């Protein structure tokens, strides 16, 4: 047997690291040497990762904040240290040949950081002070030090005002939805992702749906390739939030842009820095699962299993009085095959260093994330290597490679009748199941043992290659060319062996196997040239031109075999019936832009830009789209005439800004074209039937199809007070999307029964974003830093354009009759018909004992939060102990508690917690009383849902609940181990961290399991808690060692 694949990966990594170390320069001191430490002002905590430069050499600090600059020319040397989130510091030191000089620097936190470099949304890098729009930068290295994060969405959650992370399922591998400044589209709302300038796919992994029923069932959760990025590899994340900022990204950026910047080495003689992080912990299901109930009716006291089996059908009711209610907790909590504490294991190893003309960062990652269900895990292995090579002072190159191998296994869940959460709240305590292998309390023949048979696995390999060349032929003219490839190959397999529970449920008792192999490629080619010329002493011009080309190709092959014959047969060719299919998607876009920025006295900056885009998915009658952009940025605190004014308020820096811009969203590939395809047709032969090919109409097409046009104004300011111990960042935005891409009905009499993608209608989003950074206490032994952010969003569907055609499209509804797009209200708002009441407030009934329902629908609320608050606090004690807590509040939204709706439906009303739980029998307020009355009345009507009730007389409104919550999202304590102890092992520093995520829901109005649980992760606007797994609580301990 060969070496297991995972081990091979680690050996490869170790070999690569070894080679690099061998290549690192030896530190022969031919000139002088500068040693020193970089710390944070106030608490004197060492700053790792700070760039230190002096005497033509540069390096980065290690975990102890220490650095060494070797071969520094003798003489007076200016040493400069800089780090993201801190003001740069400088000091001067005398260096003698063959001697070592010392230079210690203290950097002050600079939350405002007007001179920090920003790479996103601009033509080339630029300083923050010139940017007319809001850009949020996250110091990810610091976040990963302090918390337990598994992917990019967890990094963003609660920390970036205006960026909504809408969690769906707590199952490892299930993706959250990312939405920036509200939904600006009815078809796609996710931002585009770039990693080091390379377009990065966040598409699903091509996995089979996790809803059971073999492969024939619907899929409700979505996965995302975005989870492949190892958080430990990320240096920072920049988010630009809307068309005002995203214009230069063109026809795909109306939903915002997220730029991930990975860690790099730093050029300059230095010693190699190793870093190892080991994390171990558990995912836990700690949600309050509702109890189940059985009413011992008179019939049940005597009911037998069958006419031939005299055993009691309801053993739990034996000896009880009629009307006795059996109450039992969820069966999965006692089932040995129900739920577990899933292990979390992470190991990260990285090395960084550099020489005179090169630098490198290499890392390897092993991440095992086991879910709370026994057949749930998501494992990731990744290797990253980033290199920088400098040919001469005018030309340098950056190369980045990343290989990821991911293995996902999804448990059966969501709305599947075999899902353990479904079963756990539909339990029937006291009933004889008739299936000895099924643990008591489940409603039927499926329990943990059976549900765990579900075998749905997806293996993915992802390779990302990128190269950037920077060429500066003249000091005033710089060029950057970026080329990149992002390639993901998947191998998904679902297997239901003959006779297995899953096969039975999927109506394929003979067994089924299906394999799906998606392959997705993104190619990026990007050029930007910038000429910076001083026109006068006080006026500078920066002119940029660029061209950006993106090509995406996705092909998926699927094979299915039904009828496996024997449990051990898992190949498609052995199946009694087999079929295959493939899907194909090809899209290309090209955009040109020109930007002119004028800088007046390095204080006032005016920016104007135009971008023209063409895309293969535009209609043939539509040519190119041009997006304009304009903005100003004014550092008013540096205006000589205003300086004294701002100094009066202890303001250190104040910048006001305003921006206007447009960006778009391209239609889905091929939707502009009228098309036919070939389908399978059964045709007769002389001896039976055979399958032949036939033509079928597919797409009606729209030759005039164009992209959505997002248009946005934003105004804001950034201000720092008290030496930036207090900083504010405020933005108001008004974003409007016109020419919405909407599916509109096509008259079937044309012979086409598909929808037609059409540009109709508009959406408006308005809101404010507020970020406050405080350092209330800054002492050697005690520092308290606080980061508070608030964001609001008012989303409104202004117009459908042609409402009748849009509504007639079969796929129009967001979620049945509960969520609908309606003009004048948020997208996919909750709507329901309320029962009619008399003057006394009593519900009115029809002759058939059903409640009389109002014919009009009443708006109940928005499915997405209209206000969010994040509050992170960091307390550092004795420079060595760091306490961190992040609170996350979301409010102003509703969730459809489908689970309880089902439990209270007449056919299953025994499990209705509102009827059986004392908390609901003793209403806390008038609203509770009304709710209980409605539910009781409804149950009392005795309607059989399957035959007697329709959607017109079901009571939905009591189950559309407020989803507002306050969670303790992250909490951690980090302790730096004593240096003396660490030094004994040869390490330069070590930190032990105990961290927890989703530790507690401190407050919520929601009565279900988790207000963040959403069964329909694959449908952007649906917020329905129908047995989706809640967010796990994750508790881990980690040790981070640096050498």
């Amino acid at each position, binding site marked *: 047997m060969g070496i297991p694949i995972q081990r091979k990966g680690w050996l490869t990594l170790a070999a690569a690291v070894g080679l690099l170390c061998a290549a690192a320069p030896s530190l022969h001191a031919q000139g002088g040497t500068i040693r020193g430490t970089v710390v944070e002002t106030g608490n004197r905590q060492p700053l790792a990762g700070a760039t230190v430069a002096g005497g033509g050499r540069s390096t980065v600090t290690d975990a102890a904040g220490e650095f060494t600059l070797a071969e520094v020319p003798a003489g007076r040397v200016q040493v400069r240290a800089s780090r993201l989130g801190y003001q740069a510091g400088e000091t001067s030191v005398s260096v003698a040949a063959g001697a070592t000089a010392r230079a210690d620097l203290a950097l002050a936190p600079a939350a405002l950081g007007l001179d920090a470099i920003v790479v996103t949304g601009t033509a080339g890098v630029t300083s923050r002070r010139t940017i007319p729009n809001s850009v949020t930068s996250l110091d990810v290295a610091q976040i990963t030090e302090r918390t337990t994060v598994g992917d990019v969405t967890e990094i963003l959650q609660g920390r970036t005002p205006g960026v909504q992370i809408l969690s769906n399922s707590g199952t490892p591998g299930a993706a959250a939805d990312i939405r920036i400044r509200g939904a600006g589209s009815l078809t796609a709302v996710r931002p585009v992702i770039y990693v080091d300038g390379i377009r990065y796919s966040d598409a699903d992994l091509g996995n089979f749906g996790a809803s059971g029923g073999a492969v*024939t069932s619907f899929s409700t959760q979505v996965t995302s390739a975005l989870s492949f990025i190892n958080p430990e590899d990320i240096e920072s994340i920049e988010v630009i939030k809307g068309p005002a900022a995203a214009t230069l990204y063109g026809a795909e950026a109306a939903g915002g842009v997220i730029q991930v910047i990975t860690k790099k080495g730093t050029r300059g003689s230095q010693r190699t820095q190793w870093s190892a992080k080991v994390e171990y912990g558990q995912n836990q299901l700690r949600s309050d699962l509702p109890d189940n109930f059985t009413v011992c009716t008179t019939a049940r006291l005597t009911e037998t299993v069958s006419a031939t089996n005299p055993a009691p059908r309801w053993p739990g009711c034996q000896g009880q009085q009629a009307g006795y209610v059996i109450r039992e907790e969820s069966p999965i909590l006692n089932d040995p095959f129900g739920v577990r504490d899933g292990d979390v294991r992470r190991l990260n190893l990285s090395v960084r260093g550099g020489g005179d003309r090169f630098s490198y960062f290499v890392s390897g990652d092993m991440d095992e994330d086991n879910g709370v269900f026994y057949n749930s895990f998501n494992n990731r292995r990744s290797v990253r290597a980033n290199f920088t090579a400098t040919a001469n002072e005018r030309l340098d190159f950056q190369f980045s490679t990343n290989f990821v191998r991911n293995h996902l296994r999804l448990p059966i869940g969501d709305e599947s009748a075999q899902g353990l959460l479904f079963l756990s709240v539909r339990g029937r305590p006291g009933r004889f199941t008739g299936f000895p292998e099924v643990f008591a309390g489940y409603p039927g023949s499926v329990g943990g043992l059976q549900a765990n048979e579900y075998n749905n696995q997806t293996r993915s390999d992802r390779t990302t290659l990128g190269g950037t060349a920077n*060429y500066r032929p003249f000091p005033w003219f710089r060029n950057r060319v970026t080329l990149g490839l992002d390639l993901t190959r998947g191998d998904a397999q679902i297997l239901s062996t003959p006779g297995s529970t899953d096969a039975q449920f999927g109506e394929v008792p003979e067994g089924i196997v299906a394999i799906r192999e998606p392959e997705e490629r993104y190619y990026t080619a990007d050029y930007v040239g910038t000429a910076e010329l001083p026109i006068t002493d006080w006026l500078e011009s920066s002119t940029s031109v660029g061209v950006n080309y993106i090509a995406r190709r996705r092909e998926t092959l699927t094979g299915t075999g039904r009828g496996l014959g024997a449990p051990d047969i898992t190949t498609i060719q052995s199946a009694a019936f087999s079929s295959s299919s493939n899907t194909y998607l090809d899209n290309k876009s090209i955009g040109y832009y020109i930007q002119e920025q004028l800088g007046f006295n390095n204080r006032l900056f005016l920016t104007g830009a135009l971008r023209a885009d063409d895309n293969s998915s535009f209609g043939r009658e539509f040519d190119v789209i041009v997006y304009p952009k304009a903005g100003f940025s004014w550092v008013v605190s540096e205006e000589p005439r205003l300086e004294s004014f701002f100094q009066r308020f202890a303001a250190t820096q104040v910048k006001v800004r305003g921006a206007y811009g447009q960006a778009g969203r391209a239609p889905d590939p091929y939707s502009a074209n009228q098309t036919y395809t070939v389908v399978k*047709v059964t045709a007769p032969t002389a001896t039976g039937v055979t399958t032949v090919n036939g033509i079928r109409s597919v797409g009606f097409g729209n030759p005039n199809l164009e992209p959505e046009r997002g248009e946005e104004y934003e105004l804001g300011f950034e201000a720092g007070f008290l030496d930036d111990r207090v900083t504010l960042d405020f933005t108001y935005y008004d974003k409007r999307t016109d020419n919405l891409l909407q599916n509109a009905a096509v008259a079937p*009499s044309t012979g086409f029964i598909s929808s037609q993608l059409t540009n109709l209608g508009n959406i408006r989003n308005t809101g404010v974003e507020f970020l406050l950074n405080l350092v209330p206490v800054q002492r050697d032994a005690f520092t308290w830093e606080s980061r508070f952010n608030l964001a609001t969003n008012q989303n409104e569907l202004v117009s459908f354009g042609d409402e009748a055609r849009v509504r007639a*499209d079969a796929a129009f509804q967001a979620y049945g009759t509960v969520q609908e797009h309606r003009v004048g209200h948020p997208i996919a708002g909750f709507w329901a018909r309320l029962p009619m009441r008399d003057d006394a407030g009593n519900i009115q009934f029809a002759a058939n004992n059903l409640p009389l329902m109002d014919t009009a629908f009443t708006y109940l609320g928005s499915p997405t939060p209209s206000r969010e608050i994040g509050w992170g606090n960091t307390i550092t004690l004795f420079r060595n102990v760091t306490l961190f807590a992040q609170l996350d509040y979301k409010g102003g939204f509703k969730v459809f508690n489908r689970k309880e709706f089902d439990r209270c439906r007449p056919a299953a009303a025994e499990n209705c917690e509102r009827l059986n739980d004392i908390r609901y029998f003793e209403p806390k307020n008038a609203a509770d009383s009304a709710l209980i009355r409605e539910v009781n009345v409804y149950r009392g009507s005795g309607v059989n849902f399957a035959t007697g009730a329709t959607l017109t007389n079901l009571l939905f409104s009591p189950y559309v609940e407020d989803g507002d919550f306050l969670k303790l999202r992250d909490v951690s304590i980090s302790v730096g181990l004593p240096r003396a102890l660490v030094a004994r092992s040869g390490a330069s520093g070590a930190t032990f961290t105990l961290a927890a995520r989703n530790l507690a829901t401190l407050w919520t109005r929601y009565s279900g399991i988790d207000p963040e649980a959403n069964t329909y992760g694959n449908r952007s606007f649906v917020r329905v808690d129908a047995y989706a797994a809640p967010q796990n609580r994750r508790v881990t301990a980690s040790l981070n060692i640096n050498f």
Partner: protein
Amino acid sequence: MMKRSFAPARFGRRVLATGAALLALGGLGACDGLLDVENPQAIDPEQLNDPAYLTLLTFGVMGDFQRAFDDVAVYTGLFTDELRNHATFSEEPLIETRAVTPDNGTIGGGVYAQLQRARGLADTTAQIFRSVRGDSVATDLRFARVQAYSGISIVLMGEVLCEAPLNNSRPYTPQELFRDFALPRLNEAIAVATAARAVGAAVNPSTTASRALVEGADSIINFARVGAARAALNLNDKPLAIQYASPVPLAFRFSAFYSENSAEENNLVDARLRAAVNSSVSGTPFEALVNMDPRVPIPTATRTAVGSGQQVFVPRSPSAYSTFTGTLPGGDFSRASSIRVASGLEARYIRAEAEGPTAENIAFIESRRVIAPGTTPASATQPTTAANYFSNLRDQRRRDFYLDAHRLGDLRRYQAQYGAGIESFNQFQTGPVSGAPGLAFTEQYCLPVNRAEMTSNPHYQ
């Protein structure tokens, strides 16, 4: 820092290098091919004019019709008295109670849209045939097949829909559909197939191909004749119906075919009745046939309905299905069960209905009755006479054509041509739905066009 002197050569090299890079990148946009994409799963409409596509188009017409036909059989069975609903999806009780609105996606997408797609592709294909084949189309059996499917699709539309537009036209009444659109297509199918048959028959000595041509032409001719007879009967033009039906041999059978091969080719009836009990005959007039008539085999053993969990009687393969066994227990449906679309038996029934109680016709109906003479209702126990002729004919017809998309057209024809004075089990059901408290039948007797048609067809604005 030492100041560097200006070097024209070096400056020139840098300008050249920069210019070359800019030109190379700028040239990206000048190349139109950069935005060319592949779509190996799609065909442009212009490509269909290639003669190589004609056979594919013909099979496509057949496939679209077959895809629509099982939906029509199931949902019109539910809309009439052939099936009772047990599915929980909210639209299906509305089909059962005949309360279908244009927003009902099950009917709008499953019946209306699929019939229109089948008819639409057939019409497009016919145009392409005329354009590509020119005069040769007059003897092209593929063209005859396309026109036959087009005609039968329109016959079905006339029987089940209240009205229907064609190609964004004004809505046509069922009478217009039968007379102005179905019959011309079916007549052309008969004429072209007859000409093609003559070509095949003229080959002397005959070859395998010529014999296949003759057999295929006979099949299309008879298929089109039965469709035309069906349209004529619905038009109450009995002489015309007799004219079309008479030449059709009793043994003739034309089916819609299905297969296990792919989900696309599966027979929907199997999923609704065998794989899961979404429907039954419990509470319908057909419940009286439990274990009585092999043509509608309904076992006495009940099955558990989805949704309600009730124990219900579920029919197995009736005589129109290839999985029919002719026995009382019957055979299971399968994903590959083919369904009879037209037959000599139907032509014989059309003749019998159009001609009335001649001795030959009485004998024919009696020959059907004796298959299950003991069954209820009582009329079925009586030998066929001139007096009970139509009653027995209608009773036998509902059994012989159970669940093959005839029942809704029959009930509408009985209602229009025979009035209310006929046996109750050959009328639309009224009153409460048996076994479904709170549900009652409405007075809807046909299916509406769907919302997409109403909002997108300018004639509905």
